[in-house]
């Protein structure tokens, strides 16, 4: 097992200690002397530089004071490229010698989406609890084949959902705090996905079934997302493609539910997932529209998409995915043939909605994609 590298603590905490007594810096000592004489600094009170007198107005008191409200009042539109790499809030005054945080994503086009501020507020307003808000007492004993199908899908979703927490966690600290709304939205996404893991794990273990099989192919796709070399690549793989597919699974899950409990689980997850997909779609659009080398960026994204799209047929020709779906759709193994008709519908819808989202982002995949229009079965 490897150990985490040692942090250069001395560079963070340079103040030396002297035996049992604490040593103050020259500046601290001078200030302490002033305090002992009853004199205060008050520089913060008299500093003329802060933009003072801001009074953000609630556009809608029913909702409360939103990010849009405060952005309308002050420092609302982030610059394309902030001068500093600091955690100082956008619009605040800061010391000229603040340390460089080492952010890698300092350009707006690398992280921004025009809907991200609204999506953050929406996410906060629509949080729910997997413990409290699911009618768990509505579960009822299902035939073994149907319960197994539910549990296989629940296992898959328990497995895949946390990628959308791990992925933003990996990139968050590398994003300049100037674009705090993006970071805040990604935090809501991480929480959403933690809740999805929670709710599907609970579902698998709550009704006489259990956790079932996880597949190498799924893990490989998750690894591709987690280890994507850049944020835009990972965001495309996860927000647009992966979560787009899962959004359709959630929608299908609500459609297939045999109990109110399952229906509520899928409906609530569907809402969350749709926010993530909306951010990803609009981020792709912003990225491509504002990239300094737009044509090159589009070409690179096409290369990525061509490889990634193979995941769609891979996902929908996997017996551990489509057969449980078909059993649920057919209400049992006896109805699997009928259920497969619905799986074919899901294939068409997944492909179509993915291509629609790409189109919306100004990224034409419809004319070049090799994903078959219809299921090959």
């Amino acid at each position: 097992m490897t150990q985490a590298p040692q942090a250069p603590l001395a560079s963070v905490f340079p103040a030396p200690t002297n035996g049992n007594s604490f040593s103050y810096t020259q500046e601290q000592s001078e200030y302490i002397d002033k305090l002992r004489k009853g004199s205060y600094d008050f520089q913060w009170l008299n500093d003329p530089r802060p933009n003072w007198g801001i009074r953000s107005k609630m556009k809608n008191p029913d909702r409360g004071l939103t990010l849009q409200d405060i952005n309308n009042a002050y420092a609302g539109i982030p610059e394309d490229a902030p001068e500093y790499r600091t955690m100082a809030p956008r619009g605040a005054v800061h010391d000229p010698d603040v340390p460089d945080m080492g952010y890698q994503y300092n350009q707006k086009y690398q992280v921004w989406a025009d809907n991200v501020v609204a999506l953050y507020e929406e996410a906060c307003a629509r949080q729910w609890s997997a413990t409290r808000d699911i009618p768990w007492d509505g579960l009822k004993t299902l035939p073994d084949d149907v319960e197994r199908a539910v549990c296989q899908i629940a296992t898959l979703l328990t497995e895949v959902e946390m990628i959308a927490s791990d992925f933003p966690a990996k990139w968050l600290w590398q994003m300049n705090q100037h674009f705090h709304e993006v970071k805040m939205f990604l935090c809501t996404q991480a929480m959403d996905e933690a809740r999805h893991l929670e709710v599907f794990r609970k579902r698998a273990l709550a009704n006489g079934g259990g956790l079932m099989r996880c597949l190498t192919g799924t893990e490989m796709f998750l690894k591709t997302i987690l280890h994507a070399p850049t944020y835009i690549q990972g965001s495309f793989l996860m927000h647009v493609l992966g979560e787009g597919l899962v959004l359709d699974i959630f929608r299908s899950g609500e459609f297939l539910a045999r109990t109110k409990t399952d229906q509520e689980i899928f409906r609530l997850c569907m809402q969350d997932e749709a926010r993530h997909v909306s951010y990803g779609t609009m981020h792709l659009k912003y990225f491509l529209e504002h990239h300094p080398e737009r044509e090159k960026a589009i070409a690179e994204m096409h290369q990525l998409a061509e490889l990634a799209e193979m995941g769609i047929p891979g996902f929908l020709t996997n017996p551990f995915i489509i057969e449980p779906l078909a059993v649920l759709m057919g209400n049992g193994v006896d109805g699997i043939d009928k259920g497969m008709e619905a799986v074919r519908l899901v294939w068409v819808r997944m492909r179509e909605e993915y291509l629609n989202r790409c189109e919306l982002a100004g990224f034409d995949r419809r004319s070049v994609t090799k994903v078959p229009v219809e299921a090959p079965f």
Partner: protein
Amino acid sequence: MPQFPSVEWFQAVSRRTEEDKQKFKLLGYVDADVGIKIDGNGAGAQSYLLKFRDYGVKSVELAKDLRGADFSIEGGLDAWSEMVRNIKANGEADIEHSLNRLTMADVPLKLVARDQLQADLFYRFNQSFQAFFNEAAHVPTEFPIAEGARK
């Protein structure tokens, strides 16, 4: 007693959301212009534009077309009436009659949107839309003769 469908009926459901505002507040606000298109058994289509704002519906209007809607849910009078009857019978839509379920396969209802981002609003605010229609359980409703005639 308002007839389904009519502006008065949708307004009556909207009033219910006002009366139960705390419940809708817990679900989260909604910003969406939703079209409802109801094909009336050969008697032509009726379109309604419902402007969802905050925790309820700000306005309901009979619309000539639904180009102003973010998305619309479209289907025949029979399907719509069955959904409302089901809600009234069960106090809420049962698992066979949720909005998502009825639109999933494009029949009997269909989700129509200008683009995918607008269509995604249906998913993002789905629980609020379902809760809105579930309020129909509490609205005295007269069903149209055309729909009743099919029985």
